[in-house]
């Protein structure tokens, strides 16, 4: 047996200078040949740690074995039995914190590039059109068409339930359509997943804000025997610093929604406008910040700063996206915290006053507290500021459903294994329970809850 290549087969990308000015996908994916070559690096461990590292326990060595043989259809079957959105997860999962982190190969060399292989399987594999099951006539409602909602809808429809998804926006997909940009996750992939779920018999009702159009109690009254709340954590936070309401200050959600959902980068062909700025500061260190910064660049900004109060090591963003951002020329301002946004005298942003930080005492998890450095204030001259410092739960559903319980941050209380909330027949999962997390963890929660809802409904009968 030839020695294992210590390095991953690299994946081609658009060149940084070129891609920083277009909205096309950055990562081009493996060819079939490259995928097979990378698959051959897998040791096929008898006790695979990678499977434990995967929040939905995809049988990774088994699907990689299929890829090795060039059987992409077979590999897709294997992944789909655990993960309904491989085309999405292959692109956006933080693999370096999950499966790839514990890959044995990674101890001495680079781990197997499981994420890229998953994407290749989604790109090349085909699955026959699912046979729509005869429905059992039992109605289940799902609130929110993000990854959690779409996953549970597909699972429950597969079990024969008559599932209706109520979505507030005019397009299904949740963060996958309004937040994550085209250059990282082409919208066509989300559309295909949505179509797939529809062929299973799931009904999608758009433009329905639960809590307003219908309350949860009304849905129950209309015959939905179980409800799964997957409304995400989409309420943007601001820093409460002076100047935050100036023109030119955006929440990341607003900025990204204008560009992704409303296609403001095609203005005036599309009606929704966005301000293209010359110099932009993005505040935050997660995926949302990276997406905002790189989007600002693609809208034509000359200079984009990323302001983050900790150091690169602590950034919660996916490794690959931080690397991509730096390659594209985003100026990283680590250990810097904003103090106020400055007014140009006409109500528009003129600059961002910041202070330098140093890392102080660390907590058990090793995360260190940033502390301001005295007299280190300085000004970034920018004409746009994007706040990507996190989101919280939208309180609408809990406020209109008195018997639901929330924790101190406003997230819904739900059983970790079943998603059961304090209200009979109502389950919940994804970001609305955990706070902003990941696509795969939202999906994992939905999968578990699908089983629990099935058991609950069987008992009711």
């Amino acid at each position: 047996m030839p020695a294992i290549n210590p390095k991953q087969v690299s994946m081609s990308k658009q060149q940084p200078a070129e891609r920083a000015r277009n909205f096309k996908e950055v990562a081009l994916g493996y060819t079939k040949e490259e995928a097979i070559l990378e698959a051959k690096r897998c040791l096929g461990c008898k006790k695979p740690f990678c499977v434990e590292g995967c929040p939905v326990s995809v049988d990774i060595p088994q699907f990689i074995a299929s890829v090795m043989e060039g059987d992409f259809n077979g590999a897709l079957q294997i992944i789909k039995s655990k993960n309904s959105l491989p085309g999405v997860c292959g692109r956006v999962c933080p693999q370096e914190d999950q499966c790839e982190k514990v890959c044995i190969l990674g101890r001495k060399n680079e781990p197997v590039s499981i994420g890229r292989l998953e994407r290749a399987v989604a790109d090349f594999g085909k699955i026959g059109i699912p046979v729509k099951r005869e429905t059992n006539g039992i109605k289940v409602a799902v609130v929110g068409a993000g990854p959690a909602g779409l996953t549970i809808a597909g699972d429950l429809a597969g079990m024969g339930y008559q599932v209706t998804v109520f979505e507030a926006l005019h397009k299904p997909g949740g963060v996958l359509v309004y937040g994550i940009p085209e250059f990282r996750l082409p919208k066509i992939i989300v559309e295909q997943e949505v179509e797939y779920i529809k062929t299973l018999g799931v009904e999608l009702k758009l433009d329905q804000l639960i809590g307003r159009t219908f309350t949860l109690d009304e849905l129950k009254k209309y015959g939905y025997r179980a409800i799964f709340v997957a409304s995400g954590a989409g309420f943007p936070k601001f820093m409460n610093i002076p100047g935050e309401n100036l023109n030119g200050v955006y929440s990341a959600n607003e900025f990204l929604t204008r560009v992704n959902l409303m296609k403001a980068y095609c203005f005036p062909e599309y009606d929704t406008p966005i301000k293209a700025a010359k110099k932009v500061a993005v505040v935050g260190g997660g995926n949302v910040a990276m997406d905002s910064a790189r989007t600002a660049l693609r809208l034509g900004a000359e200079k984009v700063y990323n302001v983050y109060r900790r150091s690169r090591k602590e950034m919660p963003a996916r490794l690959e996206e931080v690397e991509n951002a730096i390659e594209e020329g985003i100026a990283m301002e680590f250990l810097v915290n904003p103090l106020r946004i400055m007014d140009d005298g006409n109500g528009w942003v003129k600059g961002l006053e910041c202070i330098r930080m140093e890392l102080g005492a660390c907590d058990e998890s090793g995360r260190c507290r940033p502390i301001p450095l005295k007299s280190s204030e300085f000004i970034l001259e920018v004409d746009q500021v994007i706040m990507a410092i996190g989101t919280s739960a939208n309180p609408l559903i809990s406020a209109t459903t008195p018997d639901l319980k929330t924790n101190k941050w406003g997230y819904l209380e739900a059983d970790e294994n079943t998603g059961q909330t304090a209200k009979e027949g109502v389950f919940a999962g994804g970001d609305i329970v955990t706070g902003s997390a990941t696509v795969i963890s939202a999906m994992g929660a939905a999968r578990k809850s699908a089983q629990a809802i099935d058991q609950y409904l069987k008992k009711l009968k």
Partner: protein
Amino acid sequence: MPKIIKRKQLAPKIVHIDIQAPDVARTVQPGQFVILRLHEQGERIPLTVADFSRQAGTISIIFQEVGKTTIDLGAMKEQDNIHNLLGPLGQPTHIAKLGTVVCVGGGVGTASMHPITRAFKEAGNKVISIIGGRNKEFIIWEKEIGAISDQLIITTDDGSYGVKGLVTKPLEEMIRRQEKIDLVVAIGPVIMMKAVSHLTKSCGIKTMVSLNPIMLDGTGMCGVCRVSVNNETKFACFHGPDFDGHLVDFDLLMKRLGTYKTEEKISIEKCERCENASH
């Protein structure tokens, strides 16, 4: 799809449409609004529900053609479908029996005021309505508002109808005569709501206004609709649109409404139909 079942021109560039929208009509309360989008490339814009019939499953929208989307909407005909319609949105107006309520409506704000006026009347209040417009032509819903008010006062800027002057004029006189007023509700252009709030603040009459910042999703997801109330940032689509007029930073609201001035012009210039309509 929500269908336009009736269209009526109320004044130059002011149009009334009734839309078949049973889900909204079923639960909408006074003070709430909808967000609509007219086509795949369209913008999402907020419009107040000016009237509704739960039985017929319809809602009424009265809007002024001010830019691309409202002009497009004005060009639509009966039986046309609205691509997307989301609602009802926002907190319902807090209605209670207070005594005497003065409802002040300016321009299309008069129509937005209609369900609120009716609800205060039904709650047993004495309702005095003041409605204003540039000239006689721009006085809308006189009959409808008259029918649900104990007293109706009309003002026009040029004096072509009713009292000559702004809506604040009769209100000021009522205050000077020391008439008992328990609540003022003002809906209309920002500058008018600011003037009314300024007037009532000096004599401590509680005043409620309905704010109309730029919106996007209308559900609390984006924060573009933030307004400053008592120096606290609020999302108008979620915490509002009704707020205590004495605490609102109207100047900030006006500045923020101007964010996309340049783009709004481009949008209109691009659109031939809009060009024709704006003559």
